[in-house]
């Protein structure tokens, strides 16, 4: 019998919602408050009052962190969903829910960041009506919007266990599989579209990063950063709850991603050779040094650590390597948005205004608080619930 069928037949006694206040959470609330204040200020007084953006640097911290990097870090949701549900990785199912949750919060953050950044935000729905289908931004809009909805539905699956409503539960089961499939297709489009976004900068983005393969590079890196994020999340929350992190499961997952990182590295170099830009790597400019750092610290070192069982099967090794992967991907996005563009920008470099930082900090704090609330009230983390998440196949057979 699967968990869901039990929930269907015998509604659990309502459990009160809880949210334990700790000093850490109070600090987070404070940061979130400052963020909300800055958001209000931005809406009242505009972008030049609240950001350091200019005509020369039209995209800044919010696009880099909230949208590009945030989306990549939320890649754990779809990569886990793909591996667990479609590629025979049932043994990783225990971490699936946590990955979904992080990813959902990540996307809510991405949508929030994107909306704030729009100069005419009240028009945000217009791409529904006017189809600039040539535009990568159009694609991006549809993917972010669609995937945020999909993730809310995916989470709805967990919600109906906690708050039993038989009608909803049945609906959830009926649409579970299509949602699961769309929930892999949309992020694949979205992550690659984030890369395609910069193809337009041909002739301006540094050739170290500009490539027709940008979409593929963004897609692959969002895929391999996923398990790293899942590992970090599990290790941190296990420590916070005084449990043991599921290192064997995580270690097994990152081994697969370690291999993918190898493919990525080879492809990156092959692409540079193909375009005749390999030499640029060693020119000693800021851009080339940043590129080398990105590849060595963000790909080569952690990729090797993931492939060595002795390292990935220890909490410390797993955590360190995962951290490097995450930092590497975030750095890569920064290099595409800022470092690589700097050479063709005729203006001093951009550094975010404190309110931009406050807004981003607020978004992150809000996401962490929501995460804490949800893990406290829903069976998300592996060791908490009595059983792993329901096997949809069986749920369908039963319902």
């Amino acid at each position, binding site marked *: 019998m699967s968990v869901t069928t039990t929930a269907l037949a015998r509604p659990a006694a309502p459990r009160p919602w809880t949210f334990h206040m700790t000093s850490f959470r109070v600090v987070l609330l404070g940061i979130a408050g400052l963020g909300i204040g800055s958001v209000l200020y931005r809406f009242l007084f505009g972008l030049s009052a609240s950001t350091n953006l200019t005509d020369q640097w039209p995209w800044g911290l919010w696009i880099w962190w909230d949208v590009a990097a945030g989306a990549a870090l939320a890649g754990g949701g779809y990569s886990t969903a793909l591996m667990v549900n479609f590629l025979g990785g049932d043994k990783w199912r225990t971490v699936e829910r946590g990955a979904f949750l992080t990813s959902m919060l990540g996307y809510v953050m991405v949508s929030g960041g994107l909306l704030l950044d729009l100069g005419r935000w009240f028009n945000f729905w217009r791409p529904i009506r006017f189809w600039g289908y040539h535009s990568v931004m159009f694609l991006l809009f549809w993917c972010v919007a669609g995937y945020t909805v999909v993730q809310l539905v995916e989470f709805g699956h967990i919600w109906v266990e906690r708050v039993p409503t038989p009608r909803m539960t049945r609906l959830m089961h009926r649409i579970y599989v299509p949602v699961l499939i769309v929930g892999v297709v949309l992020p694949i489009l979205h992550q690659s579209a984030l890369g395609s976004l910069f193809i337009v900068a041909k002739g301006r983005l540094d050739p170290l990063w500009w490539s*027709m393969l940008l979409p*593929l590079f963004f897609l692959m890196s969002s895929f391999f950063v996923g398990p790293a994020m899942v590992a970090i999340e599990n290790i941190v929350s296990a420590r916070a709850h005084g449990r043991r992190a599921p290192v064997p499961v995580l270690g097994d997952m990152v081994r697969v991603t370690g291999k993918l990182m190898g493919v990525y590295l080879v492809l990156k170099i092959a692409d540079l050779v193909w375009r005749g830009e390999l030499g640029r790597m060693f020119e000693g400019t800021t851009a080339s040094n940043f590129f080398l750092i990105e590849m060595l610290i963000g790909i080569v070192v952690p990729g090797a650590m993931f492939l060595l069982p002795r390292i990935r099967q220890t909490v410390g090794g797993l955590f360190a390597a995962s951290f490097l992967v995450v930092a590497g991907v975030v750095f890569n996005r920064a290099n595409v948005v800022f470092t690589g563009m700097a050479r063709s920008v005729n203006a001093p470099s951009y550094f975010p205004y404190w309110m931009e930082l406050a807004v981003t900090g607020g978004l992150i704090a809000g996401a962490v608080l929501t995460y804490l609330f949800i893990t406290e009230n829903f069976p998300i983390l592996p060791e908490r619930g009595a059983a792993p998440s329901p096997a949809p196949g069986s749920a369908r057979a039963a319902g």
Partner: protein
Amino acid sequence: MRRDSAGEPPGGPTDPGRREFLKLVGATAGAAAAAAVLPSGAIASPERVEELAREHANDPGMLIDLSKCIGCGACVTACKFQNDLTWRQDQPWLGPDAQLASANWTVVRTFEPETEPSGSIRYAKRQCMHCLEPACASACPVRALRKEPNGPVTYDVTRCIGCRYCLVACPFSVPTFEWDRPISKVSKCNLCFQRVSHGEATACAASCPVRAITFGKRGELLEKARATLAADPERYMPRIYGEKEVGGTSVLYISDATFPEVGFREGLPTEPIPDYTWQVSRLALPVAATVGAVLTTIWVRRSRALERGAAAPSASPDGEKPGGTHA
């Protein structure tokens, strides 16, 4: 494939999922690489530029002769009147710091080219180039920016969402944004769309006292530019800026100083920018359909296998899940 054993959950060395996964990754990577790289070699055809030039030969355009410009700024004033733009001290429209901005659809910037005798000055009048295949319009998610059938690239504020992708996309860094308003709009020259649609010249061209700006049909302007260069090869750089840049632009420049010295960007491709991006964005639907189909197939196959397993009384589907790993 070597299997590392210690402490790993059951899954088996011959776990088909993993192999399937690696195969899928390989196949997807290969297909995408081929799809993206191969046509990117194919678009670099000189015929494309010629074809565009023919297609747009009758579009309104401007030929700007930088060697004639005296930097008086009459064109800027005409533009500001024509388009109801303000004069803002923080947005200089003449001089060495002049820059396109929300209130400046055109500016005249001063340069001191190093190759010229010291003290000699050049003035560069800048505005939107009105590309034949505009990157800004192809980048706009709502088609707020578009190329009008008769040539000019215009902007419709009511549609714009303010994403500023056009600012990122424009190879000449032309569009600007009204940063200091709570609700901002994009700002850029529209080649006096109303005027040229009625057959009139642009305000700037009409106001130039030394005829540094010639208004006319792009095809004829190209002829004129070539003739001017040929008549005085000593004086001019042997180049028409805008003839081939990103597939060609409706505004063309000739100059007696080198173009980078007077602030023009070099190293732009001769292929239209939208040709690059379209190769990728047109893949979106096919990729989505393929991935969706593959996933559906996998799902159907897997649930059939599960059902077969469930037929045996003892093996519930859940029994196949490695429930022990999280104990």
